[in-house]
C-alpha cells in the first residue's frame, strides 16, 4: 500500500489501561505509550457492566481484522473481573464470527510497574502472524 504505514497489529485494551488510575507516587502505567511504541492500534473495551451491543460491535471489528491479515492480541488486568476483557461475553461472540480467541497478556497492578512495562513491551514486540500469512495479506 503506497505511503501507508499501518502496523497490522491490534490490541484489545481495557478501559483501566487506557485511562489508568495514578499509582503510588503519582506515576501511571503507560500502556498506550507502550502500544504506540510497538506499533499497535488499540480497540478500547468498556469498563465492567452490561455493554452487550457495544461488545457485539467490537466483536464485528475484531473479526474483520482477524480475517484479513491483522495480528490481534488482548492485554488484560490481573485483578479486574474478567481481567477487564469481558471475556465471558466476548469469547462466544468471537467464536460465532469464526475468530480464534486472541493471545492474552495480563498486567498486574500489584507487581513492580517497571517490570510489568518490560514484560508487556516484550509480549507486544514478540507477537505477529506467521510470515506466510503476513506475505499473503500485507503485500
Amino acid at each position, binding site marked *: 500500500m503506497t505511503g501507508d*504505514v*499501518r502496523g*497490522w497489529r*491490534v490490541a484489545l485494551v481495557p478501559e483501566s489501561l487506557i485511562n489508568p488510575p495514578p499509582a503510588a507516587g503519582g506515576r501511571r502505567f503507560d500502556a498506550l505509550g507502550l502500544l504506540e511504541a510497538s*506499533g*499497535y492500534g488499540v*480497540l478500547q473495551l468498556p469498563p465492567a457492566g452490561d455493554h452487550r451491543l457495544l461488545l457485539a460491535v*467490537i466483536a*464485528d471489528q475484531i473479526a474483520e481484522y482477524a480475517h484479513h491479515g491483522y495480528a490481534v492480541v488482548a492485554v488484560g488486568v490481573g485483578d479486574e473481573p474478567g481481567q477487564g476483557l469481558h471475556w465471558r461475553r466476548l469469547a462466544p461472540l468471537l467464536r460465532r464470527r469464526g475468530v480464534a480467541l486472541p493471545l492474552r497478556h495480563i498486567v498486574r497492578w500489584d507487581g513492580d510497574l517497571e517490570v510489568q512495562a518490560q514484560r508487556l513491551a516484550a509480549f507486544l514486540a514478540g507477537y505477529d502472524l506467521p510470515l506466510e500469512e503476513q506475505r499473503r495479506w500485507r503485500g
Partner: protein
Amino acid sequence: MEPNTSRKVALIAHCLLNQNAKVCEGARYPGVVSPVVEALRSRGYEILQLPCPELAFAGTRRWWAVYEQYDTPGYRTHCRRLAQAIAPRIEQHLRAGAEVVLIGLDGSPSTGVRFTSSKRDWGGRPNRPQDDWDLVEGRGVWIEELEAELARRGLPAVPATGWALDMGRYDETGSSRDLAEFLDRRERAMRIPGDGSSTPQGGAR
C-alpha cells in the same frame, strides 16, 4: 447538568487510536496517533474511543469515498446501531457532569466534524492524487448520526473539533496547534461559566 470539572472526557475518532482502521493507503501512523493522545492527557482528559463505522461496514480493504457515497439508508442504519452502542457510555459521563468533547477526523465522509469530503457525482475507481472531490464545511455521516442519537436522549451538544488527517496534504504541526487551541478554549470556558467560547466548535452543517 452542572459541570463536574474534576472529570474531563474526550470522545475520539476510532482511528486516532487505531490507524489500522483507515482506508487502504490512508494510515499515517502504525497504530496510535500519539500527538492527539499527548494533547489530551497533558490536559487531564480521559479517552473514550468511538467505534469505526466504515471498518465494520465496508471492511479493512475498502477505498476512500466521499460523503454522498456513504449517505445511504443502509449506512445510516448501521451508524445508528453504532451510536446506540456507544451512547450509553457518553450519556453516563454527561449526566455525571463531566466536561465532554468530541475529536473527529476532518475531511472524512463519516467522521468529519468541521469538514467532510463531498462531490455529488464522484465515484468509480479511486485515483489519488487526481481525485477531484471537494472539502466542504460540515459533519460526516457517522458524526451526524451520533449527534442525532445524543439529541434523542435529551443530551446537550458536545463541543467538537476535528483532527485534520483527511484534508489532503497532512500537516501534523498544524493539526496539533488546532487541537491545542480548541482544548485551551474549553479550559477557559470551564473557568468562566457562560463564556461565549463554550459554544460548540463544529462545522456549519
